[in-house]
Structure formats: C-alpha cells, structure tokens
C-alpha cells in the first residue's frame, strides 16, 4: 500500500554501513612527548588538566610517574620538547615550564602525595641509593602499600640531584622539599649507611623481600694520559660535589673543562661563578645539528650550552686532549688536537685525533667530565645475584645519565618488584605505540601561538642563585593550552559534527562509530585534529 506521506526518520531501516570499505576506529595513542619522556609521564594528560585550571589534578597526574616535578621542571633536558609535534607548527610546547610550575605550586600549597590503596603489604623492600631512581622506586612502592627502607651512603638524600646539580639550576630547598614530600608517605631513610660497610649486603637479603640497587655512578673517569701527578686535575663530579657541599675550591685564572656532557657544562658554569676564565674542550660541535635538532650532537643540553656561552664560557669544540702540559708540578695547560671522528666502526664513542693539529690551551686546572663508573664495592654479591627479587636501576644500570631516566627506571623497578612479590606480571597501559607524526595531525585546527619562556636573570655570575625564573600562571595556562594532544582525543566534536551520515555517536567521554550507517568516507579521520582516528579495513 502506497502511503501519501513517509514516516519521519524511517530511513534508519536502511543500513548504509553496507557501503563501507574502510571504517574509522578511535584509538588513543601515546604522544611523542610521552614516548620520549624517560619517566614515561602522561604529559598530554597533565597539560590538558593544567590548561583547564585543574592544577592539583594535573600535579597528581604528573606525579603518578614522577614525584619530582619541581626538580625535573628545572633540570630535565626535556626530550619531550624535542619530539613535540608543535615545533612543526610554530615551536614546541614549554612542557618543562608547566612541569616546574606544577611542582612549585604543589610545594607552595603543601599538596601531599596520596597512597593508592589503603591495604598495607607485609613484604618489606630495601632500596639502596636515595637518588632519583631509588626514591622514585620507593615512592611507587610505598604508595602501593609496601613498607620501604632506603639506604644511602651520603649524609643527604638526593644522590646526584644533590651532589651534581649546581644550585643556580636547582635550588637546594626545592630538592629537599620534594624529597620530604616523598618521604612523608612513610619511607624509612637511613643516611650515612653504606651497604658493605655499615650494613652487610647479606643482612639486606635476609631482612627484605626485595632489593633495588640504585647506587648511581659515583666513580669518575679521568683522562691523564701518561701524567701520574694528579695535581691540578679534578673530576667534574667531585668538583660539583665540593661546590654543592660548600667546600672552598681554589680557582686559577684559567680553567679547562674537558667533556661534552652536562657535567662539563655545569662544572664550567660553576668555575665561571668562582671567577675563572673557563674553556670547555669537547669533541662535539655544540651547535651541530642532527635530524634538524640544534645541539643534538653534543650530549649536553643545548639550552645549558647557550646559557654557558652567555655567561662567558668559551667552547673549543671538535678538539680532544692529547696530553697535559706541566710546568713543574703545576699545570700550565693542555695540548689539544683536532678530532677526526667521534665514533669507531662499532658506533662506540671513541674520538680520534688528527696528528699535526696540536695546539696549546692555557689552564691552571683541568676538570675532567668525561663520565663516571659504578662503584660496586661491597655490593658485588647483590650485583651478581641471579635472584629475581634483586633489581638494579638508575645510572647503575648503565642507562643514559638523565635524572628523568633514573625516575623512570625507579618506576619500572617498583613494577617489577611488585610483580615478583605478587607473582602477577605487571600490566602496562595499552597505548598504540605507533608514532603520531605531524602528518597524522590536522594543523588547521591549531592557530599559531607564541611559546612562553621563563625569564633569565641578567646579573648572575656573582652567586649560585637560580638563573631561570619560572612561568607565571597565565603563561602556564597558555603553554598547556598549546598542547596538540597528539593521538589523544580531546573531544573537539569534529568527527561528530562532520559525519555526513550522523554515524558518530557521542558518549560521556569520547565517541563511538555506528557501523550500521558509517559509509567509511574518512572525513572524521581526516578532520580529527590530533590523529586519534584510524581508517582500517
């Protein structure tokens, strides 16, 4: 029977989904910032919260993986920003600036870390080393109900954060307060306790159900060639520790710092503050680029290099030390030569010098910052144990020496320890590991905006006060809002608005495709700003 009118909405009986070849799939991806973050922070998430003025929630999100935001916001070399897709549009999001703000805000507001569950575990865990890796591990464990005892050979907690980072980069009180906040969760800390001396490794094994070794690399390497005198020579690590402990260090007029890493730059800048003319001798070109990233050739943070140069540190690069030149006992300088190549055939760092390119560099003190080694003394038993309840992490595990890496290592160790103690393998969040590249984003939806930077103190060579000032609240909100949210839906509704077939259904958080009607045109995927939607067969 033919009807004179059609019923409203009766077309839903016809399923146009049958036309489809490709179908859209909503998939949260791990943005490049998080992929490159050594601590695996969910950066996008806490930036989103910060942009929405949910400061405490942002801090809590951040500290899920990293209990040191105020510290890391200052000293982390933020590989996240190097990988940030925003740089293709204008410039990377000032992630570390937001992180620092959140960390400082938490200290200012006295926010306390919360245990994740009330249930107390009985299995005790020992952590050796109160550096970033050890404290990170302890933090994760204690929040999950495990009693943790931390041992450290030194008289102050913080490890390299305390001994190796100059105060002008990381004020001591910031570090202390963040450590206090972690300890406040109920961690037992035993300072001045060297395992193998004050406590035996064996007693640890007997007393604790699991042990995490995060002792760091404390044994500096020094190149001296044939020179056995040891006079006027110092390691960067020792130099920094003495500065950080307030010990007086006598400065000659000329100081040479050898090395291309952050320790070298820190040492150079400290020497500069003590009044010396400083030259950094390094094989890498600090301004050389790799994959378009300036400064990538040299391990030191590019920003630090820039700061050092601004402070009058001289950089002599593509040079290596061939020998020390002495006048009697006293060091008069270094003989340096042009570097032929940085790496050997196996890709190992092994600078080779050109013969006949030697020159003389005047220096009354040579600070070698060419790396450290782990001091396993007294811990060999634990190091060599094959028990799965003994883990090694942080710098001691031979990872790149970033504080954030140590933090990440501490987290992984905690997860492994829990897995070991419970017998349940660790469950990691399932994120699409595929790279969210700039081509996956639709930049039309992101207006250009200028990156906000922290301030730089102009008059700064007279003391060790902090050099970089943080972002203010407005700038932080602005920066957090600049996040492209790569691969993570922020519910802009584009897919919902643009679907010609009304086949996108809005959920409480996110969207769902109605496959009865989706024709697979792909507009949703094309117009998704953040690359959250994939077209699949």
């Amino acid at each position, binding site marked *: 029977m033919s009807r004179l009118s059609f019923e409203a909405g009766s077309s839903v009986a016809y399923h146009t989904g049958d036309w489809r070849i490709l179908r859209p799939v909503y998939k949260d991806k791990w943005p490049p910032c998080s992929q490159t973050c050594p601590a695996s922070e969910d950066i996008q998430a806490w930036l989103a919260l910060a942009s929405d003025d949910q400061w405490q929630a942002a801090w809590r999100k951040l500290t899920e993986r990293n209990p040191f935001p105020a510290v890391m916001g200052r000293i982390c070399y933020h590989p996240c920003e190097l990988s940030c897709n925003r740089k293709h549009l204008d410039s990377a999001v000032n992630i570390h600036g937001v992180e620092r703000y959140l960390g400082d805000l938490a200290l200012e507001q006295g926010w306390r870390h919360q245990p994740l569950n009330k249930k107390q575990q009985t299995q005790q865990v020992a952590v050796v080393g109160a550096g970033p890796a050890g404290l990170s591990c302890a933090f994760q464990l204690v929040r999950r109900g495990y009693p943790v005892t931390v041992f450290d050979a030194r008289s102050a907690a913080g490890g390299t954060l305390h001994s190796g980072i100059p105060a002008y980069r990381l004020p001591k009180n910031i570090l202390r307060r963040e450590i206090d906040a972690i300890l406040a969760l109920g961690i037992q800390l035993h300072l001045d306790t060297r395992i193998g001396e004050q406590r035996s490794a064996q007693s640890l094994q007997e007393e604790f159900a699991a042990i995490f070794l995060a002792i760091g690399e404390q044994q500096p390497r020094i190149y001296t060639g044939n020179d056995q005198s040891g006079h006027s020579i110092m390691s960067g690590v020792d130099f920094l520790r003495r500065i950080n402990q307030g010990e007086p260090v006598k400065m000659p007029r000329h100081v040479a710092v050898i090395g291309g890493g952050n320790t070298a730059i820190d040492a150079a800048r400290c020497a500069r503050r003590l009044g010396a003319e400083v030259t950094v001798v390094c094989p890498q070109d600090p301004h050389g680029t790799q994959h378009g990233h300036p400064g990538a050739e040299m391990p030191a943070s590019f920003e630090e290099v820039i700061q050092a140069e601004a402070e009058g540190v001289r950089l002599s690069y593509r040079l290596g030390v061939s020998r020390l030149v002495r006048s009697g006992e006293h060091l008069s300088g270094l003989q340096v030569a042009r570097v032929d190549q940085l790496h050997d055939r196996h890709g190992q760092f092994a600078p080779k010098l050109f013969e006949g390119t030697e020159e003389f560099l005047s220096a009354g003190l040579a600070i070698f910052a060419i790396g450290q080694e782990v001091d396993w003394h007294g811990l060999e038993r634990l190091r060599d144990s094959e028990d799965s309840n003994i883990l090694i992490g942080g710098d001691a595990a031979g990872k790149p020496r970033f504080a954030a890496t140590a933090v990440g290592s501490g987290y992984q160790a905690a997860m492994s320890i829990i897995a070991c103690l419970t017998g349940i393998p660790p469950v990691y969040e399932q994120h699409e590991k595929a790279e969210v590249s700039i081509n996956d984003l639709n930049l039309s939806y992101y207006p250009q905006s200028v990156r906000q930077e922290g301030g730089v103190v102009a008059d700064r060579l007279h003391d060790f006060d902090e050099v970089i000032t943080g972002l203010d609240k407005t700038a932080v909100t602005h920066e957090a809002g600049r996040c492209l949210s790569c691969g993570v*839906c922020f519910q802009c509704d584009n897919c919902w608005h643009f679907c*010609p077939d009304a086949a996108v259904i809005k959920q409480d958080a996110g969207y769902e495709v109605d496959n009865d009607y989706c024709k697979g045109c792909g507009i949703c995927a094309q117009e998704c700003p953040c690359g959250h939607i994939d077209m699949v067969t």
Partner: protein
Amino acid sequence: MDVRDTYRHNVLTSGHRACSGCGEAMAARMVTDIIGPDAVYINATGCLQVFTTHNQQSAWQAPWIHSVFANAAAVASGVEAAMRANGKDTPVVVQAGDGGTFDIGLQCLSGMIERGHDVLFVCYDNEAYMNTGVQRSSSTPHAVRTTTSPPGRLSEGKHHLKKDVISIIAAHQMPYAATATVAYFPDLKAKVEKAMSLKGPRFLQVLSPCPLGWNHDAAQTIQVSRLAVETGLFPLVELEHGAVTGVMRLARQRPVEDYIKLQGRFKHLFGSKGGAVEIRHLQALADARIRRYGLLEADTEWTTDTANQVQRRGRGGYARVSKGESQ
C-alpha cells in the same frame, strides 16, 4: 565560540543515501540540527531530496515537503503564509541546491524575498547539477570540467564565470544574506543562528563540496571547502540590507593551486599552456574577491584561524586519569 553544547537533534538522520563524504549531506545535517526539528523544511528537487527520501523511507525527523525543482521558495511562501494565518510562528526553512537557487529557482526566490516572507532560504552550493550527473550550472566556477562543459581541443572547461548570487540576493535589501561552508563549523553555526534570530527573508549560501562532481577524495570534503575559503575563491561574508557587515578575514592567503590540485574537475588545467592561463585567471578571480571584500585586511578578530579553532575539553585525555593508576 562554544559549539559543543548544541543539542543534536538529527533532523537529518542516518540511513540516507548520499555518496560517501557528501558535503551537502553534511551541510544539511549541520544546518538543520542548528535550527532543530521545530520548523518546517521545504526542499527543492535535487540530490538532497533524492538521497533523503527513497521509497517510503525518509531521513527527515522534522516536517518536510518537496514539491518540484523551481518552486521551493514559493512553497515556503505559502507555508509561511499559512503559519501566519494560523497564528503560528513555526520557522520555515528552504533547502535547495545551486540549481534550485541560482538557476531554475531564482525567480521564485526573488519573489519570496521581495514579498518579505519570513523564511530562511539555504542554498547548498555544490557548483553543478550533481543530481543528474554533473552538468554545469551558473554556479559552476570558471574553467571547471563538467559533462556539459567538457574540456576539449577548443575548450578549457566552463567558459563562463560563477554567478555572484549572494550579491544578487543581497540587492533585494533583505535583512540577512551570508555565505558559509562546511569547514568552519562555528562560523556556519553563528550564521544560521543569526539568520534564525531575524525576521523576514534570509539567505545562506553554503559551499558544499561534492566528492563525485568535484572529483576529490571523499575524506577531503572539509579540506577542500576550507581551501576554497583560504584561497579567496569563496569569501565568507555577511550582508545586511544590502551592505557588507561582516567578513571572515583570511589569516593567510593560499594560492588557488592548493585548492584546485585536490580536485579532478580542474585536472585538465595542469600540464597545458591554455590550462596555465586559466589557473592564472582563477588566481586573479581569487585576488579580486579578496580585494573586493578586504579579506586580508578586514578589521575583525574573526579569521580563518579563529573560526577553525576547536573546543578542547580534554576529557578524552582525562579519561586516562581514572584508569592510569591501576597497578
């Protein structure tokens, strides 16, 4: 602008038979959802009518009528008169393609406007007769290939220019006439809402790319319409009582090649001398439109950047807060 809180009515619901990636379906869905189901919709003959009503099945969830090709504006006049006669103020909305607006429907539209009927006329402009298989209309831009303006030994596509219909319409001294497109949803929404807030005849020309007729990737519908604006070929303007009262400034001007290279209907222009001349002609047309409306220097915050900015609630990102600490 907050575009998120719009209640979605699905006035044009699923199960319609538009091509995959249809710009007109998208435009109609947006416009009718902004207006809502409490209105009477009159449709001219065309793709929209064909793909939304099929053998006793209708994709419309509001009162809807189709009569013939040319008369949508006149039918709307009658509906509106009936509403007035019955003391109702139900909004009356016409939906037509460019054929039903620029060409066969222009006379009825002009009559409707001249008589001051309280009707919103929405033209989904896809720049050719798509329903019958891509024949040129007076809205088809210069140099475009259609089945009735084929390029050949003596031709580079359509000889004539796209009719400046918004000026013709605005010359009726009506309350509101504006152009919009499927990209820049906040702009479209603002214009529909503005139109609905006014009385009397109102007109919206919504550029609606046609993947079939323009021969572009179905997924590129928004991108193509965005480029139509960013090149200056399709200025987004508002006219009130004949005077230009608003333009969307171009944050940056894109060369017309960026636009036309995405579309097969311009493909014949590439790789020939005559085609190169036509591309320069299209660029000149874009430049002229930009100058005419001051699209690069207009004193307005409303730009192709600001109108594109999406709302971010971040709740998708937040969602991980709840599950993130599961271990």
